[in-house]
């Protein structure tokens, strides 16, 4: 192992257009999508038959048969089959956490190159057997005589045949993510108008980026989809104002289907490497991976909102890197809900929050909103949980490369379980 860390670079990325749940990718599995994404990356960067250091990726919602999902995808791809792979899972932070893992190994000199990614489908989601039925079947399986087996199976009841649906709720509170967010949004006094404005900007920014060909080398079409299915280029505040709230209760409910991300299917992957590896392969790095931080908050006992971990992570990351919140050219704050982004921004501006929760004498302050999610984010593109990190890292790396050497970008992704993953990238020539 080398004694000091070396620079790690984002060389490029690839994703498939994101599809609305039950849409174009109805029949595509996580393995199908991630394999397609890896192969698109292989084609873009001439990696055919190449042995990489490793591939780290994952899915939040996974079938039991996908116990070795990423390795299976590598075997199905045009990478050298001797490329090792493993699965990562940290809810919506999966994709970015996979990038951190691979980047750290490259920094340490343990590997020279790697792919980090993620995939998720809510269309091809696993359905679990009803827990009562599962116990009955297990009992029958362990029965020692045919009589015992019959006796066990006789306990099956019709109501046990309904499958257990995968839930989008926190096991410890029973509340859905949206319901949690509605509580936090109310606490921070986030208005419906501000949320709708953010959502409209996301759609308009994403549509404009597609129009000017920005995604030509970031996205590979898949199953007839060439752009994100959720994208509404003609979205407007007036149209969004007509939607009824879906999260929160009563008068103060502000969160609608328009300012919340829909369930989405998709996959993404990012190619990382050392300077030497990139050079040897004739590849020009887009951005340097500078640093990352993960935080978690105690949302269970009511001390903090479920999706409020990112400001904690950002505060620690900035301090470690001697940076202020204003030292960035671009901010990529994942739009789980429009209110999530607005709560983070409000919290970081709030002196009280920054002092009592983050332990800062002066608040992190505000950001220039013109630098926020300038090429659209999850509200427009959609949010296949584990694929969001890869989408953002590749997108920001390209933006920083175009901006120029030394330009800086901040990524922030909130995740279930009260967690948040944040990272800094720096543009390279």
């Amino acid at each position, binding site marked *: 192992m080398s004694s000091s860390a070396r620079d790690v670079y984002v060389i490029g990325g690839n994703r498939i257009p994101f599809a609305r749940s039950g849409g174009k990718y109805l029949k595509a599995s996580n393995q199908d999508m991630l394999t397609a994404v890896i*192969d*698109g990356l292989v084609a*873009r960067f001439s990696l055919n038959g190449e042995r990489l250091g490793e591939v780290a990726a994952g899915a939040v919602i996974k079938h039991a048969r996908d116990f070795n999902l990423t390795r299976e995808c590598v075997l199905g791809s045009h990478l050298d089959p001797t490329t090792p792979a493993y699965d990562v899972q940290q809810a919506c932070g999966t994709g970015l956490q996979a990038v951190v893992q691979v980047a750290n190994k490259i920094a340490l000199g343990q590997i020279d190159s790697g792919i980090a990614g993620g995939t998720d489908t809510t269309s091809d989601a696993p359905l679990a057997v009803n827990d009562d039925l599962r116990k009955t079947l297990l009992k029958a399986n362990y029965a020692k005589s045919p009589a015992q087996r019959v006796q066990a199976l006789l306990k099956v009841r019709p109501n046990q045949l309904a499958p257990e649906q995968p839930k989008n709720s926190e096991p410890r509170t029973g509340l859905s993510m949206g319901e949690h967010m509605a509580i936090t949004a109310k606490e921070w006094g986030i208005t419906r108008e501000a949320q709708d404005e953010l959502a409209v900007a996301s759609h308009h920014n994403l549509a404009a980026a597609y129009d000017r060909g920005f*995604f030509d080398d970031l996205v*590979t*079409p898949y199953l007839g989809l*060439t752009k994100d299915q959720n994208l509404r280029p003609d979205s407007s505040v007036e149209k969004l104002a007509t939607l009824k709230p879906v999260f929160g209760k009563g008068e103060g409910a502000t969160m609608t289907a328009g300012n919340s991300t829909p369930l989405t299917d998709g996959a993404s992957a990012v190619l990382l490497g050392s300077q030497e590896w990139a050079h040897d392969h004739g590849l020009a790095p887009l951005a340097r991976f500078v640093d990352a931080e993960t935080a978690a908050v105690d949302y269970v006992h009511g001390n903090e909102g479920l999706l409020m971990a990112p400001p904690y992570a950002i505060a620690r990351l900035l301090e470690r890197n001697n940076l202020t919140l204003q030292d960035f050219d671009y901010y990529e704050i994942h739009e789980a809900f429009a209110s999530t982004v607005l709560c983070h921004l409000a919290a970081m501006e709030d002196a009280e929050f920054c002092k009592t929760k983050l332990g800062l004498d002066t608040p992190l302050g505000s950001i220039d909103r013109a630098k926020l999610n300038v090429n659209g984010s999850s509200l427009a593109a959609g949010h296949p949980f584990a694929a969001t990190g890869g989408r953002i890292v590749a997108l920001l790396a390209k933006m920083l490369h175009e901006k120029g050497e030394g330009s800086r970008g901040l990524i922030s992704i909130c995740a279930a379980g009260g967690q948040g993953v944040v990272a800094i990238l720096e543009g390279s020539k």
Partner: protein
Amino acid sequence: MTDGYTKFVNGGFGKKIAGTVGLPQPTVLRRYKVGQDLLEGPAAIAGVGEAPALEVVRKVLADSGVSVVEAQADSTYDSKLSAIVFDATAARTIDELQQLRATVGPAMKSLGKNGRIIVLSAVPAQETDVEAAATQQALEGITRSLGKEMRAGGTANLLRIGEQASDDALAGPLRFFLSARSAYVSGQPVTIDAGDVPTVEDVHVPLAGEVAVITGAARGIGAEIAKVFARAGAKVIAVDIPAAGDSLAKVANSIGATALQLDITSPDAGERIAKAVAQHADKLDIIVHNAGITRDKLFVNTDEARWGSVLDVNLQSQFRMNKVLLDPSVKGGLKDGGRIVSVASISGIGGNRGQSNYAASKAGVIGMVRQLSQELADRKITVNAVAPGFIETEMTAKIPMGTREVGRRLNSLLQGGQPVDVGEAIAFFAEPSSAAVTGQVLRVCGQSQLGA
């Protein structure tokens, strides 16, 4: 994309029926495989007077392990010939054409399947003597007629050797027209003239180490061009529109190429190609302008958009990309001694009902190639075009059956060509040994009657 009829008449029962009833009997053409022998049997050679070009012909045949029969008017042949090469470059009088008739005639009777006739001539326009010019021009009429009389997959082509052609300049083109790579090319003249022709290291990987950009490579003819180039040793950058990115990635991964998703009509297409090239090499060796679209309508019903988009994609975009790639100061631009090969069409030669816009663009390509080749001659860059005839692709498979059958059979080889045939012809122009071939438009059409 299968031609069921050709399969049928080449099977036992179908062959019998077709023979009895007198149906046309297309032959399954011999096509190139890596390591394949140049020819399957002996070649007969002859010529007028001193036949100065035969020296190179003998060398090429000997290097390829082909046994040579020096043909005379009264020669008889024990075994089936695979090729006849007749050097008429020294013919100056109409009477001398009798020698061709007398020697090639008997040899032609002994040609086996997929036989080749190659007539070598001078360039008529370079002759100062009128009878010599007429004599040399007569060779084209003869060769085109022989192409139509050839049987069992045979082809006849004319190679014109210009005054400035070096001794080695003939070797590459000769090999191509003798080989199975020119399976679907017949009745065509090609001129060889000035150019520095290098010695060939390995005829099976003529493009080893070269970087080639191929547009429209996601499917059809473009995908096949990419495959031929990869087989020939080139590092391929496969370009197609972003919307075709998934099939482009599949093509690229199947041959170890790089996929570049790019709309060639975008203003910065040339820059983006140069940038992609620069990641692999300082300079680009070959650009193949293959991308093209059709928006068919009768002329009177063709609106501005149908007219404009076809001309923009098929012709205008090539100008814009060339402008950038031909700038010597651009990193990743085309090198001196590089190659430009464009895909034209027999529609651009003969016109086509409902294709005024397409024919305009493809005829425009031919005009561009002829003029640009002269402009770039001092930089040793060659510029050529291939004009495909009826090629069996997904696109032609959609033509209604009656029309399709006519298009398919109305040529000397009685069948449609394969996309690989176009790829082989383009690769031929791209090879280092084709340095003396420029400004040419080669039809890959089985000597189609259309546009003839």
